[in-house]
């Protein structure tokens, strides 16, 4: 069993250093803007009170939903690749997992920067979090579920590569050893990993759909806010999240592909155009579904006679939000046409696919703006003045810093770990698992899963206060934490199955397997 390592690990070029330094500038600016916001309060933002001419949620919430959407798109792509065994997408599974994880890191500051008292938010939510609030789903299922789902995938799928890297003379060897977590490169371990990946995907996909729906529910259940109160919000959020995620993946995959080509890397052909084609075909189908949802939504609103719903729709279609709305529609339509025509004529161009991927992301951001803002500024039942919302430089700075930080995380990761799954050549040594080992593995898995699910249910019920007045504190203090730990343990139960050390005794593999470095070969 051998592998070829990519060129760029622990090799820092001038281009890389300059780009990283440039990215530090917007990050620093964002931190500065946030410190000013903490000092002055949210008056430094463009948000104001609803009814007094403002909108109480603004750009930070739009981008929180956007980044959460990218996370959903990334992890769902990775999970579906394993579930449906899509060979074309296999090279970009790690990119998808990283997109999910890093986007979530960026969603968190966007949400925290929206809170009036972020430290209290971080302290009180685990203590007093109430399950009836849609924010419960946002803070727990979306944040924690996404986080552990993407982390468990990244970890398990990267164990083999980490094992290979640990054999090299790289710095921070402990990091690779920790990641490999006892991996020895046997055929049985590999088989076990594929089995676990499949089952994990089967569990994770519905969980992620539920988590993204909970974001839609934050808006969808607000009876007092015309434009938001809509049963289609949850499915629309899921589809839009998938669109932005797939669009971003096309862009990132194309960038990584071009970087590998210029570096003349042994992995320069790892991401083929087939991968991009697959993603672009998925993208136009998703755009079509989303356009259908939007059309149904608009028709319902337009036919709603002289209600406030119609006021919001009119403001969106022909009022102050019309430029944003029609730009968004234009971007979606152009992207759809580009991708669909390519599909019909079977003639694909990477540049056009990337342009469509970027355009749908712009459109997704604009759409989120249109979801969040007009219902606040125009959607009041009582005779309040119509409001307006203009983001300030502080809000733009925080969002720009989030994008820059995400890119920097990608750049850093590329230098410490193979960003594309390593090609393993030769055969893996076979060490059959002993029968008692199999039984113990299953017992550990079932035990962990049962424990996790029990904690999840207990934590949820204790937070929900079913049967008593719902506005009191949780029955068990810190029960939201119990719920979160339950979700975490449940998600990690397949990992327990995979890493449990009952495969073989350590005597079975006395000789470590040494990979061949690509650089050395040249």
């Amino acid at each position, binding site marked *: 069993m051998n592998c070829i390592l990519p060129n760029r690990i622990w090799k820092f070029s001038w281009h890389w250093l300059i780009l990283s330094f440039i990215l530090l500038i917007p990050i620093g600016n964002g931190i500065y803007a946030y410190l000013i916001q903490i000092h*002055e*309060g*949210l*008056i430094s933002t463009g*948000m*104001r*009170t*609803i*009814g*007094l*001419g*403002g909108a*109480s*949620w603004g750009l930070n919430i739009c981008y929180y939903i956007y980044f959460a959407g990218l996370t959903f798109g990334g992890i769902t792509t990775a999970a579906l690749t394993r579930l449906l065994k899509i060979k074309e997408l296999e090279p970009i599974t790690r990119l998808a997992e990283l997109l999910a994880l890093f986007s979530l890191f960026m969603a968190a500051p966007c949400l925290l920067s*929206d*809170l*009036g*008292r*972020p430290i*209290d*938010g971080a302290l*009180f*939510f685990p*203590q*007093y*979090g*109430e399950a*009836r*609030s*849609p*924010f*419960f789903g946002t*803070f727990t299922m979306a944040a924690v579920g996404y986080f552990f789902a993407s982390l468990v995938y990244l970890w398990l799928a990267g164990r083999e590569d980490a094992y290979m890297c640990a054999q090299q003379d790289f710095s921070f060897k402990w990091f690779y050893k920790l990641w490999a977590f006892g991996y020895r490169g046997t055929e049985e371990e590999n088989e076990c990993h594929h089995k676990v990946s499949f089952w994990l995907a089967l569990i994770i996909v519905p969980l992620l759909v539920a988590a993204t729906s909970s974001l839609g529910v*934050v808006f969808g259940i*607000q*009876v*007092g*806010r015309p434009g938001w109160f809509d049963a289609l919000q949850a499915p629309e959020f899921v589809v839009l999240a998938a669109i932005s995620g797939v669009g971003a993946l096309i862009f990132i995959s194309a960038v990584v592909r071009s970087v590998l080509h210029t570096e003349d890397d042994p992995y320069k052909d790892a991401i083929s155009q087939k991968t991009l084609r697959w993603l672009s075909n998925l993208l136009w189908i998703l755009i079509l579904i989303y356009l259908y949802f939007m059309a149904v939504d608009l028709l319902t609103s337009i036919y709603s006679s002289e209600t406030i719903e119609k006021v919001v729709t009119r403001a969106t279609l022909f009022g102050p939000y019309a430029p944003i709305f029609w730009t968004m529609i234009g971007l979606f339509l152009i992207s759809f046409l580009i991708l669909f025509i390519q599909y019909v004529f079977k003639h694909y161009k990477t540049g056009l696919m990337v342009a469509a991927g970027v355009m749908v992301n712009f459109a997704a951001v604009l759409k989120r703006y249109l979801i969040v803002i007009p219902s*606040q500024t125009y959607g*009041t*039942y*009582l*005779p*309040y003045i119509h*409001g307006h919302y203009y983001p300030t430089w502080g809000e733009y700075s925080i969002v720009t810093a989030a994008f820059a930080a995400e890119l920097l995380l990608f750049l850093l990761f590329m230098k410490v770990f193979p960003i594309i799954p390593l090609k393993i050549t030769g055969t893996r040594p076979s060490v059959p698992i002993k029968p008692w080992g199999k039984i113990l593995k299953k017992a550990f898995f079932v035990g962990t899963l049962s424990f996790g699910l029990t904690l999840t249910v207990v934590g949820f019920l204790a937070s929900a206060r079913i049967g*008593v*007045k*719902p*506005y*009191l*504190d949780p*029955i068990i203090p810190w029960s939201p934490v119990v719920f979160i730990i339950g979700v975490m343990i449940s998600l990690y139960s397949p990992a327990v199955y995979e890493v449990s050390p009952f495969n073989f005794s350590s005597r079975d593999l006395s000789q470590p397997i040494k990979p061949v470095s690509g650089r050395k070969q040249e």
Partner: protein
Amino acid sequence: MNMNKLQDLWIKIVRGWFSKEKKPSSKFGITRRGAIKILTFWSGFLAAFIADPKKSWGFAKNKITAKRKQGHIPKWGMVIDLEQCTGCGGCVMACAQENNIPFPRHGKEYDGTQILWMNLLNNPSPFPMPCMQCEDPPCVKVCPVGATSINDEGLVVQNYGRCIGCRYCMEACPYSVKFFNWDEPEWPGSLKELLNPDVSTRPKGVVEKCTFCEQRIRAYREECEITQTPMKDKKLQRLTACAATCPTRAIIFGDLNDPESEVSKLSQSPRAIKLLKELGTKPKVTYLTKQGSVKP
């Protein structure tokens, strides 16, 4: 017991716990004393459970339910007669002074940051807007940390220490009567010394709202409890700061559960309407109009 004895006892307990020495036990693996201990505990628990199931589990009991069982509990409501309202704004000023509402500041950056527990809309006639104190409040349902809750009096109140400033309640309120402290509140000059000591000031980053002058209700109840007299409707009618100040008596406060109260009678009037009744929030503020209907 001195420290040495305590230490010895501790060592005995720890040694006993980890001791490998087997204690004499029955064939069921339990001593008689142990069995008596367990039986006593569980029979005590069972007795407590039969007597009061919720209390035996240590559940926090809902005080409203407890009080309701004892007898009458008030349901505070308000009636605002739009025909009598002159739009003088006295209620707005009185509310601000009573509840330590910070002064609005001038400047474009402060537009939309005012805090108005009692707002006065003008469309086309004056329209006072306090919190509707809904019976099924949307703001309470969405608060992720229980900072907005219904208190023992059935009033929707805000726990400022608990509020994390997510402003979800502001989004959920269809009446837009919740306000956020966008920056640190300020009172010019010596006005800071005139703050009402019965009402806490709110820091930046939290949401606040009208509480139907909860502090005045509490003070009046305590007064009645001391003098052992019932709460009088006549006094209740002008208990809140806005009702007390209104020169035309357009605002009446009182107990909706008392059929003899003025507020209860007026809320049954054919002129009575409830704002956004169709949303199902069950507001406890009733408006009286000339036509019996209003399009605000």
